[in-house]
């Protein structure tokens, strides 16, 4: 059941997100970007690398494709798998040489996550960072309330600031009693 709470949010696009979209649009190689949309985050398989904000750039130089990605958290163990998945997709589409480079700066932020990605997270049962009731980016504490991705209630409690992966915190809904993860703002 969806309560009215989620409907009251007026989405506004962070500047960083707008810039990313413009960059992609003006890149001149839309087919390569589209190809990379097939690569999903191995931990959250509904999210593409683009939608989560890991994908920074694609460059074509002759028959070599360079893909630049950035890690979410320093110790994210998914980066190696992501690199292999990118090379796999490129290989399947006849691109013989694909170099994947890790770029640390500027550091990844959840602000780069797309609107589509945020909706997909919510549908998957993970609250996106903007579903924190008192505002995205506020420090988490025991009073923090998050819209429950299952029933939409904001009557929730934080079970633990740390969850099953570095990027998530563990919450429970007091209304429907379901536990859920919050994708932390960083």
């Amino acid at each position, binding site marked *: 059941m969806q309560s009215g709470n989620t409907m009251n949010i007026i989405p506004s696009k962070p500047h960083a997100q707008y810039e990313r979209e413009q960059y992609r649009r003006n890149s001149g190689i839309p087919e390569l970007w589209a190809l990379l949309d097939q690569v999903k985050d191995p931990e959250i398989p509904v999210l593409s690398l683009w939608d989560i904000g890991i994908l920074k750039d694609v460059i074509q130089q002759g028959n070599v494709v360079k893909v630049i990605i950035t*890690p979410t*958290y*320093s*110790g*994210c*163990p998914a980066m190696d798998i992501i690199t292999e998945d990118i090379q796999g997709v490129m290989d399947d589409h006849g691109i013989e040489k694909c170099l994947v480079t890790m770029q*640390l*700066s*500027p*550091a*990844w932020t959840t602000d780069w996550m797309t609107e589509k990605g945020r909706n997909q997270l919510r549908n998957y049962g993970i609250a996106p960072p903007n579903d924190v009731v008192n505002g995205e980016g506020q*420090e988490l504490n025991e009073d923090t309330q998050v819209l429950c991705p299952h029933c939409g209630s904001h009557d929730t409690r934080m*079970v*633990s*600031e*740390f*969850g*099953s992966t*570095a990027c998530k915190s*563990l919450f429970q809904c007091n209304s429907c009693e379901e536990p859920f993860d919050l994708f932390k703002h*960083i």
Partner: protein
Amino acid sequence: MTQSNSKQDLLTYTVRLGDDAIILGHRLSEWVSYGPFLEEDIALGNVSLDFIGHAQMYYTYAATLSNEVGDKKAEDDFAYLRDEREFQNHIIHELPRGDFAYSVVKQLLIDLYNKHYIEELKSSNDETLSAIAAKAAKEVTYHCRRSKEWTLRLGDGTEESHLKMQRALDDLWGYTHEIFEQDELELRLVAQGIAVDSASLKDKWFDDVKAIIEQATLKLPTSEWAVRGGRAGYHTENLGHLLTEMQFVHRSFPGAKW
């Protein structure tokens, strides 16, 4: 100074920062499945992974630098194929995990140090170190918050938790001096705007620690003993035991893949 000597300095410094991170990260990982309760177990695993991630970034950069000076080491070589005298971590990172109070106090002292250290490293003249610091800084913020919360809760908790926290603080204090001291190599890099001048951070760190310790109803130690030598490769017996665990698989099955 020749350019290659200068690069060798940078390589050594980068490896040192990696050593601090990997040793502490491994130490924290020992808590996994021994945490006081499930959520805390997960939190300790998360924090451990952050440090191992920092170590990986430093060692990856060190591998690049080592290729430039003709040494050709890979990142795993730094973590898994060096012996204890070759590790140059500050000693506090290798101390055993002890009881939960001991780990909490150790983290508090180190997290608050990193808060200032990483902030300074962000403005290093070396682009890669600066980028690693910018990445790590986000994680250091919540490490500090976590350590502070636990210190307040346990310090100002029951009689027993208070006693254990005070004992841990007294036992750890002597290991905090060397983290603000620098050898010739680091001073050369400080002069080039590459390394952090850690001595200049001590007062800020002390004020942070003092405020939290006092709020937690604990007393700052007054004893004057100090243990030094980590950056020169002198260690306590704890490091050898840790490396035995950490390096076992890599050394027993060279080149293993899965």
